[in-house]
């Protein structure tokens, strides 16, 4: 079920009313209800893959209990943890990466002959998200950061909580699981904020991302005949598309969770206003970045080791992050590209230089800050070309075509392109104005009529200018 679908518009209010009015007084029933509606939400796409989520949940739940049982026997506890990690990664590997690696191997050593080797199974939506979420639980239990839960319904609700099941944020058990352990109360302000955040997410997805997608798809499908300026514009549009799409989903997920009295972590924090790549990665897909930091980078030694190991660790985390996004060399190249951008900062000890928000408390950035933001954005856009391309070769051709003399010609504008650019600009302006708040469209403390008028205006824009509904990009990851 898509957030931007009529099905969800019917599903959400029904679930909301039942959750609070019918099941609100009994925590166990309320959690069971969360599991049931979450499975309906997921099963709307393909019910067969519900077994996979259930299996992942059972494995991690069981692992948590066994690790606790063997608390006095570290070797056994470690073995349980490792087995659970291997099982989960094996499932992920089979469904997501098996065909990719087999094809790559066949191309390298078998002359491209893959006859009888591929399994060609469809990729279960959101498998990378819920697998990582479930893994975080057993690892945290193993590390002693978390007491294992003995309530399987609570655990199933934690893994399958529908707002963030298929595209995150990838929640930590330490944050989300305790919220299923205690009774939840509806808070009016949280409900209003939730609605506003959903609205802003819908704008970013349906108006910005989906309209950008029209231009991006057209240009990327005919990139060999387009001018450099058109290709550059499409790359910039893709930057807005992927941001609007993914952060829009996160906003809807977080807003929806607020309606159910659940607080999810922030997943995007104005990443396109970053002053260097390190800051960008602290603000982009925060739940995944911190997951890799805590469960891969730091166990490898992080940045508190020799320079050679720092370089290795940086490459490992970015390559794995690239691979997490999909089974294609372009994603790995995208990860490597960001590792190369990140390395100088970490080696010079400047990767933590910008921990505050740019121009905090000020309306405009300084010239220096503006230049830094622009440069970082350009570097990120180059990365997005690699990410969006279907092959490394296409990315390279695309990039070289941008750099020819046609870069200085007028870009080809399709019908509605200028309007799309205006919406992207509007998104940036609003996010800039609200950058010091918890989310854009967070009107807390502002006279009541302003959010009402603004929200009506936003609804009108969404109704009138939403592009033809498209699935969320990150569903495939």
């Amino acid at each position: 079920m898509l957030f931007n679908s009529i099905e969800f518009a019917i599903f959400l209010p029904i679930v909301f009313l039942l959750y609070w009015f019918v099941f609100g007084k009994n925590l166990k029933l309320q959690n069971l209800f969360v599991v049931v509606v979450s499975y309906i939400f997921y099963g709307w796409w393909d019910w067969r893959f519900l077994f996979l989520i259930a299996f992942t949940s059972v494995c991690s739940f069981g692992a948590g209990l066994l690790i606790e049982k063997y608390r006095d026997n570290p070797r056994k506890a470690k073995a349980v943890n490792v087995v659970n990690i291997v099982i989960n990664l094996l499932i992920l590997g089979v469904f997501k990466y098996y065909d990719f690696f087999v094809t790559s191997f066949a191309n390298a050593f078998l002359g491209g002959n893959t006859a009888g080797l591929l399994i060609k199974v469809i990729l279960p939506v959101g498998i990378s998200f819920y697998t990582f979420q479930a893994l975080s639980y057993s690892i945290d239990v193993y590390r002693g950061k978390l007491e294992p839960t003995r309530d399987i319904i609570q655990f199933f609700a934690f893994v399958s909580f529908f707002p963030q099941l298929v595209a995150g944020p990838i929640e930590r058990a330490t944050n989300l699981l305790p919220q299923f352990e205690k009774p939840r109360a509806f808070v009016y302000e949280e409900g209003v904020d939730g609605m506003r955040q959903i609205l802003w997410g819908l704008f970013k997805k349906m108006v910005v991302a989906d309209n950008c997608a029209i231009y991006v798809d057209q240009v990327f499908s005919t990139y060999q005949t387009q001018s450099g300026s058109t290709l550059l514009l499409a790359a910039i549009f893709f930057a807005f598309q992927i941001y609007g799409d993914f952060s829009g989903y996160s906003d809807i997920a977080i807003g929806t969770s607020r309606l159910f009295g659940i607080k999810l972590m922030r997943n995007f924090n104005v990443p396109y206003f970053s002053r260097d790549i390190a800051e960008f990665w602290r603000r982009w897909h925060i739940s995944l970045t911190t997951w890799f930091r805590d469960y891969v980078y730091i166990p490898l030694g992080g940045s508190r080791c020799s320079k050679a190991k720092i370089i290795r660790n940086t490459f490992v985390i970015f390559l794995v992050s690239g691979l997490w996004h999909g089974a294609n060399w372009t994603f790995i190249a995208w990860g490597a590209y960001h590792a190369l951008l990140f390395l100088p900062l970490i080696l010079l000890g400047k990767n933590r230089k910008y921990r505050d928000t740019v121009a905090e408390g000020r309306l405009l950035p300084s010239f220096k800050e503006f230049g830094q933001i622009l440069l970082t954005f350009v570097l990120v856009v180059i990365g997005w070309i690699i990410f969006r391309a279907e092959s490394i070769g296409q990315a390279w051709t695309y990039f070289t075509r941008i750099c020819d003399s046609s870069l200085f010609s007028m870009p080809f504008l399709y019908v509605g392109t200028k309007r799309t650019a205006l919406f992207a600009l509007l998104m940036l302006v609003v996010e800039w104005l609200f950058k010091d708040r918890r989310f854009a469209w967070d009107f807390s403390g502002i006279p009541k009529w302003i959010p009402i008028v603004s929200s009506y205006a936003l609804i009108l824009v969404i109704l009138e200018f939403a592009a033809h509904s498209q699935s969320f990009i990150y569903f495939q990851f």
Partner: protein
Amino acid sequence: MGRFLKRIVILLLVPVLLLTAVYFVTDPYKTLRPFSLTYFDSTNRDYLSSELYIHNSEEREYDSFIFGSSRGCGINTYHWLKYLPEGSKQFLFQAWSETITGIDQKISYIDEHQGNLKNAIVLIDIPGSFSRNQLSTRALSIKDPRFSHQPRWVHQAILFFDFLQKPSQWIRAVKEWVRPHRPYVGFDVVSNDWKKSNRDLELSCPPEKDSLGNLSRIAKAAFFKDYVNNAEAALPGSKDLIDEALLPVLNHIHDVFQRQETDYRIVITPGYCYQYPPISSRDLGILQSIFGEKNVFDFSGRLDITSDYYGFSDANHFGLNIGWRMIEEIYNPGKSSSLN
């Protein structure tokens, strides 16, 4: 919780009630009150074309029809009349986003109601005409329930909910209700043609809007220039669109034409955007095998046709100049060699 629900209900309900009142007062899609010849509305064309046909058919006794989508607006039926036997009475059965199933339903309706089908042109758009989605949920292109056999209340409900979702329709409905006559939109109350040529329409409408695409003239010229420069390289590849489910539909159209001894032409229309690929050779072969090679005319992907600026209307539609040239070619095959 009560405060929250109350606020949500008030904030949502007030505008919805207001819009419901606007809907019933203005009747934006002309489906709530009896048909009137002044209903020159450019939305819900399927229904309004049918209304006009039903309203006139007894008196006019139409016998010559052009079936197709909004691209039919690029054809002047009075020009077509020159190629028809004397006394022929023509009707342009246009429906936005028309499908081959929609065309079949109209042909069946005429046939079942003892109508004559002496002459016919079936306009086929690639890929739209072979769309699997036969029942549109948009007011612009929704099918007439009398032909599609959709329950009337579903038809009305779709129109109403579509209206609620489109602010531009609210403004249009109120504007037309206040000032019903729009000089630049109109349909011939006899043949259902667009009343004026597209170029005339452009001249008589506000300069920042053209008749069909809401493109400014400058943007339109720029789009066309770019199209001509890139069209050949950017012409998308063909896809096979006719599946098993559509074969009986095509065969049925052919059977009715055979039975009625219709002089017919199947015309595959040209488009401008990357979404409009040429018809695939397989699909062309299917059409030719069903309707006969001499009756099928393929203009899709014909850059010699679409590179005429004076025949360009907008990204999705050709203008009267191209419509004129197509009629010339299909009734004088071989003569207009410059188009081949």
